[in-house]
């Protein structure tokens, strides 16, 4: 592929945009690692993108856009490290003045990079974002920004916090990473079991955000799924990482087209599910299998999704399998969501009364938890306790932000309370 000169402006913008989406995290990981400076990496990369948008339309898109961006950002970084102005404002000043070789070492490390063979250090970057020394509530936002390239304003919208507050949190985390010197490294085998769950939790957080439809939903879900698959590939042999990739892929396979009416899982037509994604998710789940080893949380959750997706093939839901999987899941990860789903499945497979009993045993936080009221409404309706069912559905609807789901729950309330 040589430089393309046909309609160069538009093409350059497209290539820059694609490079931004696909390579952002890779380039940030490479640029930030030497000095642990994410802010500087993002600043210089942004400058490189800006330059691409002015020079590519004029001179043509380079053969290796990523390598070009890396080289430009790297040179900019080197200039900054060498400049007195930068040294005055950054911690490197002292190191350089003291004769420590950090500044020179950083430049040498970047120079060693061959732009034609760009290594993938995103895994180390993920472990930085989800480091236990970084506040838990900023890990997912940090991943969204430095690995996936979302801007602070979009992340703030997804988390429903003011943009300025989110920016400040992100900046503080990045400075902490630089100043406390959180290492850009993948933990060794010994530390891995302790560190990996934080990474997977934060990746899962990226995906979970997309359920709260705040405008970023579609792109977030797709990018988060992609990130989970990338994480599993980079790690190679971690069952829970493949399980998370399977979970998000199988969940995505059932995702409704945007703007459509809300349908609960059991009312969905399996014909509308994405068979390609189902097959892909099942393949990931097989990679997670370890005979003789107890399954992890994400493995159980992915297996539950696989059972639901299997209705597309078998025509009916295997409720016994769901009972077994949910019982195992709430035993190792007793989250409120998992326990509500467990109760709903028991209510369906055994008896509504048995499910209701499990719901009543939940802690008081249940009162503000929408799925609790929705599941309770369903079980009460099955028991013929119509007024209580209508009240539970009404409460569930009131706790729902998604308009389509709210409309659905409202209809259920009317049906339960009506003649």
């Amino acid at each position: 592929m040589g430089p393309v000169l046909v309609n160069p402006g538009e093409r350059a913008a497209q290539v820059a945009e694609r490079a931004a989406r696909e390579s952002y995290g890779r380039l940030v990981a490479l640029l930030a690692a030497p000095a642990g400076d994410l802010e500087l990496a993002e600043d210089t990369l942004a400058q490189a993108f800006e330059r691409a948008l002015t020079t590519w339309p004029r001179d043509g898109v380079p053969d290796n856009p990523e390598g070009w961006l890396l080289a430009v950002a790297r040179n900019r970084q080197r200039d900054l490290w060498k400049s007195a102005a930068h040294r005055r404002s950054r911690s490197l000043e002292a190191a350089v003045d003291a004769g420590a070789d950090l500044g020179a070492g950083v430049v040498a490390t970047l120079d060693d990079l061959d732009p034609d063979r760009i290594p993938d250090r995103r895994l180390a970057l993920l472990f930085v974002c989800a480091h236990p020394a970084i506040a838990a509530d900023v890990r997912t936002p940090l991943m969204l920004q430095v690995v996936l390239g979302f801007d602070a304003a979009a992340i703030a919208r997804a988390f429903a916090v003011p943009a300025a507050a989110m920016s400040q949190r992100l900046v503080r985390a990045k400075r902490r990473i630089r100043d406390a010197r959180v290492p850009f490294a993948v933990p060794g085998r010994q530390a891995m079991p302790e560190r990996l769950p934080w990474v997977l939790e934060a990746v899962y957080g990226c995906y979970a955000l997309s359920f709260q439809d705040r405008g970023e939903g579609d792109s977030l879900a797709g990018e988060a799924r992609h990130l989970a698959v990338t994480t599993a590939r980079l790690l190679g042999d971690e069952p829970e990482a493949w399980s998370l990739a399977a979970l998000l892929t199988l969940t995505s396979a059932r995702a409704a087209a945007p703007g459509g009416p809300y349908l609960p899982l059991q009312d969905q037509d399996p014909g509308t599910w994405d068979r390609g994604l189902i097959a892909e998710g099942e393949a990931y789940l097989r990679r997670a299998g370890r005979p003789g080893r107890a399954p992890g949380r994400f493995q159980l959750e992915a297996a539950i999704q696989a059972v639901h997706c299997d209705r597309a093939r078998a025509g009916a839901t295997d409720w016994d399998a769901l009972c077994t999987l949910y019982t195992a899941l709430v035993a190792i990860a007793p989250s409120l969501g998992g326990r509500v789903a467990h109760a709903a499945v028991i209510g369906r497979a055994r008896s509504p009364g048995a499910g209701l009993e499990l719901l009543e045993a939940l802690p008081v936080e249940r009162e503000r938890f929408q799925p609790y009221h929705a599941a309770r409404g369903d079980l009460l309706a099955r028991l013929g306790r119509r007024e209580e069912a209508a009240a539970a559905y009404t409460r569930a609807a009131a706790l729902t932000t998604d308009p389509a789901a709210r409309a659905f729950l409202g209809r259920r309330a009317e049906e339960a309370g009506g003649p």
Partner: protein
Amino acid sequence: MRYMLLFHHREATEESVGAEAMAEGMRAMASYAATLEQAGILVSGQVLRPSADSTTLTLVDGEPRIQDGPFADTKEQLGGVVVIDVPDLDAALDWARQAPPLSWGSVEIRPGGMHIEDGKWVPSW
């Protein structure tokens, strides 16, 4: 990169914890010091006398005021520090994990800013 490990814990005396526990704690600290030394990362260490022995100086309206007792009168006090020189936070965390005072309280890991060498302040990172 220099990190200071600060040991915060309830102050113990021979009367409060018993002579045997006290002796065991001292043995653990001795072996920790030897391990740090052997690893070649130990810069310095200091265990402190009880905070009751402390004297605090503050300027009040420009005049120094001397008070008996520590700067902050809290249940947990700074009991000692160790300064180590290691490549990054993960390495510092590993050494902090092995510190005996962790069983008595908390270990704070604070990156160094500057330290004195030959009478001059030099950066610690």
